[in-house]
């Protein structure tokens, strides 16, 4: 297991967001982290990353992670692509990428192979990119460095269907090289990419197993993920 989360609890502003979340992420492939809005998916990622205080234990690559500063975990190969991309709007595309470079030998070949558009737009300021382009830039930032696990939060949120498809394809290619923990609302994307799924409900793990077992059962899907969840083809 590349990541083992055990009994993770988070209290923010007096309310218990996470109440003893436990799950594992295998060292290959994509694991989906699912659940309705507000169940604590993003909180889980941020707690693992050390951005918010949490109790319990998190083990990343055999080393306890809780309490370690975020930047050290990231340097150890924990890549993070946050919700809403968080590219630096005032910096150019090239500057965004340059900022992310940590290794002696950044992998620009892979990045520009996956996202050739970024090369053409390298002098454009990131704030003027489209949502899809910003997402590609956010993914590119983690791909420049050697990684052991990627935490990716809602990469297709707010994107047009054609762009969702492109992002999903990119994620699929990335997953050949590095395991991922993926938060995603679009169940078609989940079905296409994720082998396993962890479902959160009310701050706890409500279900854990192969994705097909979850999404292949409409009643279970509706029960765990809400009535509105439908499996759309990307």
């Amino acid at each position, binding site marked *: 297991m590349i990541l083992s989360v055990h009994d993770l609890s988070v209290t923010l502003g007096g309310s218990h967001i996470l109440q003893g979340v436990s799950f594992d992420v295998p060292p290959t492939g994509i694991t989906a982290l699912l659940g309705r809005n507000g169940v604590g998916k993003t909180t889980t990622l941020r707690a693992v990353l050390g951005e918010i205080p949490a109790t319990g234990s998190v083990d990343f690559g055999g080393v306890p992670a809780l309490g370690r500063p*975020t930047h050290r975990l990231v340097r150890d190969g924990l890549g993070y692509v946050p919700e809403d991309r968080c590219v*630096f709007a005032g910096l150019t595309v090239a500057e965004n990428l340059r900022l992310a470079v940590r290794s002696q030998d950044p992998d620009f070949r892979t990045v520009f192979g996956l996202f050739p558009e970024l090369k053409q737009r390298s002098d454009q300021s990131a704030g003027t990119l489209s949502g899809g382009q910003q997402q590609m830039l956010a993914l590119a930032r983690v791909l420049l*460095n050697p990684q052991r696990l990627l935490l990716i939060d809602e990469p297709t949120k707010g994107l047009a269907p054609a762009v969702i498809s492109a992002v999903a394809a990119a994620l699929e290619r990335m997953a050949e090289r590095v395991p991922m923990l993926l938060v995603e609302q679009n169940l078609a994307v989940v079905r296409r990419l994720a082998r396993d799924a962890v479902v959160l409900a009310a701050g706890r793990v409500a279900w854990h197993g192969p994705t097909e077992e979850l999404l292949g059962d409409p009643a279970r899907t509706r029960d765990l993920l809400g009535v509105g969840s439908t499996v759309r083809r990307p």
Partner: protein
Amino acid sequence: MSTVVLLTLTGLGLAALYFLIASGLSLVFGLAGVLNFAHGLFLSVGAYAGWFVATHWALGPAIPVGVAAGAATGALVELVVIRPLYRRPTEQVLATVGLSLAGVALLQSIWGADPRSYPRPAWTAHTTGVLGAQVPDDRFLLIGAAVLVLAALLAFLRWTRYGLIIRAGVENRAMVSALGIDVRAAFTLVFTLGGALAGAAGVLGGMYFGSVSPGQGAGLLIFAFIVVVIGGLGSVTGCAVAAVAVGLLQQFVNYYGTSGAGDVSVVALLAVVLLLRPGGVAGKVTA
């Protein structure tokens, strides 16, 4: 006409002083989120260090010594007081409030509460004719220093890796950490940088006003705060624009209106800017 020229250049001299104080303040707030009340202390420490060197040794090294003293104070404050309070922003502000009170009292216990006269280069006492106005040369010293600092700061932010980190951190500091960068090293850097600029402002301000007193920094700090808010927190260019606006407004209204009206009009300008654009001229929306 010559009055207007003289007022403009005097206003720009004042603007230069405000810019030297406010740019560091703005970067510290923009990156580290700390409203630094101790910034006036950095200025006073720099001013007294420069004064000490100038009166006991020579005038030449006063500026580098003042800059070094301000930088050292800034770094020390960040490492000893601000860093342990990381993630407790209100406490950080309060701690700088306590530091500013204690620091001014400390200076007062060493050099007394009364202003000390500040030595200055002989050439600054001369005047130069500009478009019919006789302008004292100390204005040019301040304006020149500020322009130099502005250019250097912009180049630093634009072309260096730490500049890149600071610009990104002003936008979203958590994301900088999430890229594997120790953003706290950048905090120490901006505090040191801010301290250095404040130290320079202390020495140059001492030469400009002809005296130094323990509370001088705190008095200038309020106008620097106004410049920072008008300019937009974390923006060096916005800071420069706002400093010029504030310096000129203050100088002209003080001359043509009653005494003190210039200071009041600066506050009015702040109120107007905040109501129209809560994020300041540069428009970065910060709570």
